[in-house]
């Protein structure tokens, strides 16, 4: 009979079974590999060298010791760790290790340590990438080469090595050669592999990658109009709001400074989307990106909603997704405008106060020109909550408070030529198109402030340009 066993010295169970391996060596053909030290086990006179882990990888070893029975060159059965009955079953030798405990679990194989399977697949498997390999001379700095080639948003990028790409791809079940869609403005088909390269460069961890892919899927929906958003003269860029269990799972920030810097997932998911548009789609500032000023959110703009209050209806549920699903909602947004209200103590006053501030979106005398996100801080939300208001009441209350007599904002009113059509002077005017105000909860405690994220002026064509939501896959 022929056996293959893989062990490592750094495993007490392997050390314990060393005498058993010596016995097995005497009565059969034993091919013994050690992952860390070829002088181990001493009882067998050492082992063959598998410090490269090639044999461990080829045999899909997850636990050491692993005992594999080989008949006619093929594996017929195996056992992991030490389970005497199972070793007896595999070897057919009843007297094996009789003085040992009945059972002792094995240890993790070095071939399955974090990041190692991808490294081994690249080295020994047939994993390969379609994207062009760029060789960086030993004397050059990869980060500088990325700048020279125009691959960055102005900040440094992580060079996309094969190992990093392989690890990123391990974050999704989607195949590397799957085409996600055509990335504007050049409408270039983007594979999952290309997206992974850009996610690496943006600084994503593999577990963020499904969120990046969902964001790409979302912006490619025709109703989102990513091409127009890129090309616009206005300030806007894609804003990603993440809902559901994934936010906590990957450590996103929905609390203090949620719209700011400092959280890797928030920072790199939004950046990955922008790098894909830049690098794959060819969307670059002062080229097809015609924005006159842009906004800092065009580096990255991604945050999670605070879903910690069980009474609060999260944004994705309000938009028709099932409870417990993870989603991205994509908005065409500008920068952040703060709103202070430290005196309102009842929901009605606060709703009127926030409505006042919301009228400034785009221009205080323009209506239904752009949508907006209202990011409600915990302290402002507490006033609504204590007054018995939930999402529905807050939305309705602010909507009502936003109505304004047309004559106040028509062209010329107040000595300002900008304004709405004079024909609407006698109407009560809504600030936003229906569905054009998203209320989202985020932020830390300690300030009676909330935030407005103004929207794209193309929202005035609300059939052409829509906010979209997308479930996050695997």
């Amino acid at each position, binding site marked *: 009979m022929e056996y293959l066993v893989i062990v490592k010295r750094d495993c007490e169970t392997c050390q314990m079974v060393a005498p058993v391996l010596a016995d097995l060596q005497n009565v059969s053909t034993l091919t013994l590999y050690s992952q860390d030290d070829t002088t181990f086990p001493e009882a067998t006179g050492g082992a063959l060298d598998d410090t490269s882990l090639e044999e461990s990888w080829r045999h899909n070893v997850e636990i050491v010791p692993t005992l594999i029975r080989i008949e006619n060159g093929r594996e017929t059965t195996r056992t992991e760790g030490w389970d005497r009955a199972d070793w007896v079953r595999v070897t057919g030798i009843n007297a094996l290790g009789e003085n040992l405990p009945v059972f002792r679990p094995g240890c993790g194989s070095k071939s399955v340590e974090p990041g190692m399977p991808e490294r081994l697949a690249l080295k020994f498997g047939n994993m390969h*990438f379609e*994207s*062009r*390999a*760029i*060789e*960086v*001379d*030993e004397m*050059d700095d*990869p980060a500088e*080469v*990325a700048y020279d*080639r125009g*691959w960055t948003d102005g900040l440094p990028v992580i*060079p*996309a*090595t*094969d190992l990093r*790409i392989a690890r990123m791809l391990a974050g999704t079940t989607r195949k590397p050669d799957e085409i996600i869609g055509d*990335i504007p403005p*050049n409408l*270039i088909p983007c594979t999952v592999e*290309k997206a992974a*390269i*850009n996610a690496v*460069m943006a600084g994503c961890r593999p577990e963020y990658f499904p969120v990046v892919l969902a964001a790409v899927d979302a912006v490619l929906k*025709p109703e989102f*109009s990513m*091409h*127009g958003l890129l090309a616009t*003269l206005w300030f806007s860029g894609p804003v990603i709001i993440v809902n559901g269990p994934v936010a906590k799972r990957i450590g996103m920030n929905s609390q203090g400074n949620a719209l700011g810097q400092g959280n890797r997932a928030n920072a790199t998911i939004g950046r990955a989307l922008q*790098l894909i548009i830049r*690098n*794959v*789609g*060819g969307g670059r500032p002062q080229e097809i990106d015609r924005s006159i000023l842009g906004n800092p959110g065009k580096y990255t703009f991604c945050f999670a909603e605070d879903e910690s209050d069980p009474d609060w209806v999260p944004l994705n549920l309000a938009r028709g997704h099932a409870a417990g699903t993870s989603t991205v909602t994509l908005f065409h947004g500008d920068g952040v405008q703060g709103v202070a209200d430290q005196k309102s103590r009842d929901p009605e006053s606060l709703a009127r106060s926030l409505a006042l501030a919301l009228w400034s979106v785009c221009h205080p005398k323009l209506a239904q020109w752009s949508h907006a996100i209202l990011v409600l801080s915990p302290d402002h939300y507490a006033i609504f909550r204590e007054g018995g208001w939930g999402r529905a009441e807050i939305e309705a209350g602010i909507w009502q408070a936003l109505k304004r007599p047309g004559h106040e904002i028509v062209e010329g009113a107040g000595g300002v030529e900008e304004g709405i059509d004079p024909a609407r002077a006698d109407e009560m005017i809504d600030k936003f198109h229906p569905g054009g105000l998203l209320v989202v909860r985020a932020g830390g405690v300690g300030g009676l402030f909330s935030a407005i994220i103004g929207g794209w002026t*193309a929202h005035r*064509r609300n059939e*052409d*340009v829509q906010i979209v939501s997308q479930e996050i896959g695997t």
Partner: protein
Amino acid sequence: MIPKGYLMRDPTAETAAVQRERLTPPADLSGATIGLLSISKERSAEFLDYVEERLTGRGLNVLRFEKPTHTKPAPESVLQEIIERCDVVVEGLAD
């Protein structure tokens, strides 16, 4: 074989744009059909009305076209119709 040095993968479409020759502008417009493409932004039509008036005043043949929305690229059908029917096109107006 892995070369010496450091390898990284290209994040771009790897389709550097082919340099395209510009069409030579017509020496004069006599007999030419001129297309005016409105991008459907506010006041596009107003601007193009004025251009049309100036061109027809010079005895030129003018055809009008329109994109459905300025937020998206012109549909292929609009582009093809312009190519089919016009010699020259003026596109406007973005604010």
